[in-house]
């Protein structure tokens, strides 16, 4: 009986379409495998697939997917440049949080009695979010450039620190907690008007007022931030392919040593690139806070937008336009998570599990970019 041998050969020519194909296959494989895991808890994977199909086919769900996907657009676009220069910024989540914190400042001041012209809130919040996110990102960048400190570990640690910072600000007794007497005059008065009272022990800030929320695209429930995201995607595309910065990023990503020989200043480049990255992630936090969360609470971490951004950027092969589409896809996945929470009584964290599976398949699938597997009949 002829035996079948598996022969693995290195590809000579790397096709341009293959990575995109592998991305798509990984996404599908991830979902299928995720459904199969349902067997562990004694449920049919078909239930899971049904929910997935439902979410992806219902136009209202899809609109929701775009909505949810907007922050992911920001966090994935944020990684286009750092990843391309082989700087593993895993700190998108923390930069996201810091952006939300920065954006919250004018709101807190408002409820504390400090007024600004209403039209200025959005721009100022955006600038503060960008600044906070950008500066937060500079820490791992500087440490890496100056002393070669591993950026994966430092940027991750910054995530947990930012997380604790939020806890500090919004916990009962904390300076931004809604029960803070500084807000008594305005916020409590506002709540009384609404006929709502404070929940004791609530870990969160007062509400983001109407005038501090980005407008919605008329006819939909989608935030106008989508337009901003698309503009940023186009800008990022332009930067990476047509500018000096994009070229130097590519060179460094290919060989840090050769880039040094070419006179490229790593410190300068990484600081610029990471600042931009932090800015974008921070803006994501701002958008999430002001369109969706409406109060700064630890719940901001629930969907893991920062981590989703990492996977989305990878899946998109660092192509900014693809990031937008993949972000919508992940928005849909997050929705799948929420739906599963309702019907199957599973934690919405399950969407993180799906994302992780997709990432796994993607990483494994990348093998086929450089190698080809052939089945040979032989003795």
């Amino acid at each position, binding site marked *: 009986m002829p035996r079948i041998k598996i022969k693995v050969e*290195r590809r*000579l020519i790397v096709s341009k379409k293959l990575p995109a194909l592998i991305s798509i296959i990984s996404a599908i494989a991830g979902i299928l495998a995720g459904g199969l895991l349902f067997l562990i808890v004694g449920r049919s994977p078909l239930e899971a697939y049904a929910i997935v199909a439902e979410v992806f086919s219902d136009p209202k769900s899809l609109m929701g997917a775009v909505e949810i996907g907007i922050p992911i657009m920001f966090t994935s676009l944020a990684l286009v440049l750092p990843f391309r220069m082989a700087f593993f910024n895993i700190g998108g989540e923390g930069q996201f949080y810091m952006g939300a914190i920065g954006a919250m400042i004018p709101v807190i001041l408002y409820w504390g009695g400090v007024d600004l012209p209403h039209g200025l809130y959005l721009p100022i919040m955006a600038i503060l979010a960008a600044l906070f996110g950008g500066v937060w990102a500079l820490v791992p960048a500087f440490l890496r450039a100056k002393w070669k400190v591993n950026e994966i570990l430092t940027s991750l640690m910054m995530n947990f620190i930012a997380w604790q910072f939020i806890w500090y600000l919004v916990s009962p007794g904390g300076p931004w907690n809604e029960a803070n007497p500084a807000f008594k005059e305005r916020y409590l008065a506002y709540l009384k008007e609404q006929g709502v009272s404070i929940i004791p022990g609530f870990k969160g800030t007062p509400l983001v007022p109407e005038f501090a929320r980005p407008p919605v695209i008329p006819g939909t429930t989608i935030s106008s931030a989508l337009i901003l995201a698309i503009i940023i995607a186009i800008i990022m595309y332009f930067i990476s392919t047509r500018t*000096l910065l994009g*070229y130097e990023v590519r060179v460094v990503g*290919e*060989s840090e040593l050769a880039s040094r*020989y*070419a*006179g490229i200043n790593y410190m300068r480049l990484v600081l610029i690139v990471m600042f931009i990255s932090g800015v974008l992630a921070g803006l994501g936090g701002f958008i999430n806070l002001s369109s969706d969360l409406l109060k700064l609470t630890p719940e901001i971490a629930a969907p893991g937008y920062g981590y989703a951004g990492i996977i989305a950027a990878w899946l998109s092969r660092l192509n900014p336009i693809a990031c937008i589409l993949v972000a919508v896809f992940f928005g849909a996945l997050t929705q799948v998570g929420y739906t599963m929470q309702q019907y199957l009584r599973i934690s919405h964290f399950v969407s993180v599990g799906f994302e992780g599976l997709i990432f796994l398949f993607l990483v494994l699938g990348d093998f086929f970019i450089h190698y080809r597997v052939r089945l040979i009949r032989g003795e």
Partner: protein
Amino acid sequence: MTIISEDTVVLLKDIVKTFPGGVVANDHITFDLKRGEIHGLLGENGAGKTTLMNILYGLYKPDSGEIYIKGRKVKISSPKDAIKHGIGLVPQHFKLVEVHTVIENIILGLKEYGFVLRVKEAEKKILELAEKYGFRIDPKAKIWQLSMGERQYVEIIKALFRKADILILDEPTTVLTPQETKQLFNVLRKMREEGKSIIFITHKLDEALSLCDRITVLRKGKKVGTVTPDKVTKVDLAKMMVGREVLFKISKEEKKIKAKEPILIIEDLNVLSDKGVLAVKNISFKVYPGEILGIAGIAGSGQEELAEAIAGLRKPVSGKIIIKGRDVTNASPKDIYELKVAYIPEDRVRVGSLPNLSLWENLILKHHRKEPLVKNKIILNFKEIFKFAEERKKEFDIMAPNIYVPARTLSGGNLQKLILARELTGNPDLILAVYPTRGLDVGATEYVRKILLRERDRGAAVILISEELDEIFQLSDRIAVIHNGELMGIVPAEQATIEEIGLMMGGALRKQSS
């Protein structure tokens, strides 16, 4: 004729090995080794010698062909098998763990020294072997503390510990001084007396002739022939190796430019190596426009660190580097580049080029900030960039389908042309060429050497660091010799002799610099 006689310990029959990309490294080669002989395997870089021996040692699998060890047909699918048959390999690039001790390296992979390692036992045996064959080694030393010659003995002891009676030495003398080479040859002769059989891979004709009982010559993957030293001359061997009359002299014109002012002044320079030891010790010299200064020395004597210091990639701990009158001792690579200094690095793939980026992206590197390639310092001007790239590709005859293919698809020679094209753009005034022809085929080697001469005739100053004394002698106007980080002397090329240079390389002679 290959007869399997009682005397034949190794027979490689009709070996074929092809690598992806179509390179036929071994083309139906038949090779035999007799008991108690030293058999030289001679050929240029890329002739297939290392590949053939890697097959014998089980690191590669042949596409076809048979292997016979001591009369029996065997399959060698891993070094483990080779070791079982008594074959030991002393590789060209040592396979030693630098942070471990000599003992730890030697007993690695051996089961005889126990689950809980019996270190003292091994130490004793090592010292016994060293005594027996006539060399000195400290078993407790860490590898990074040892000289190249000592590390080689570690590799040899490794093979002996595994009861090897067939030894393969791959280009062992590349890293040795002439004196260390002599000592090694004595050790090998002693081993031959003990009945060991040795395959000696080399590209150095003199060594093959002086040491070996028989010499097999490979060229471009094929076996040219097997001869005995008494029946051939150096010229015959060279012809076999290269396939045509080898010109031992390139026609080189007299130095055209007689410059008064040096373009580069090195003053009492001290530079640290990666290991934190001084690699360059108090070196001083000058280089003038229109000349080639060849720097000879065994690899690892400090030349690489010297070149890196001049290029701005390594900060000296003391001393001065002055280019065109400017003190650039602590300057950045960018500053140096702006003074029109070109650097052709040792590592073509990882340092000299960007393998996965396209040819044009490689070609504009270093010039990428200049107009007209960049508009307003921000936006890339593709029209100008592609034009520039096409011109360079044509000028330097880089064989590739177009300027958009990734650099890793280029052959070694074409890659070096790419690097030259990039570096020589803009007519640099000082060129640092570090082992520029290493690993290149004959055609590419000639091309590179011609280019260097052309630059020198144009008026550039060239510092040529090379391990090929032939090359140094052919191209240089003056020859500097470095040994162990120190400058042993600078001699005008017409007056220099190989013996003199060899002694300086070995640290045995110092000359007043000219």
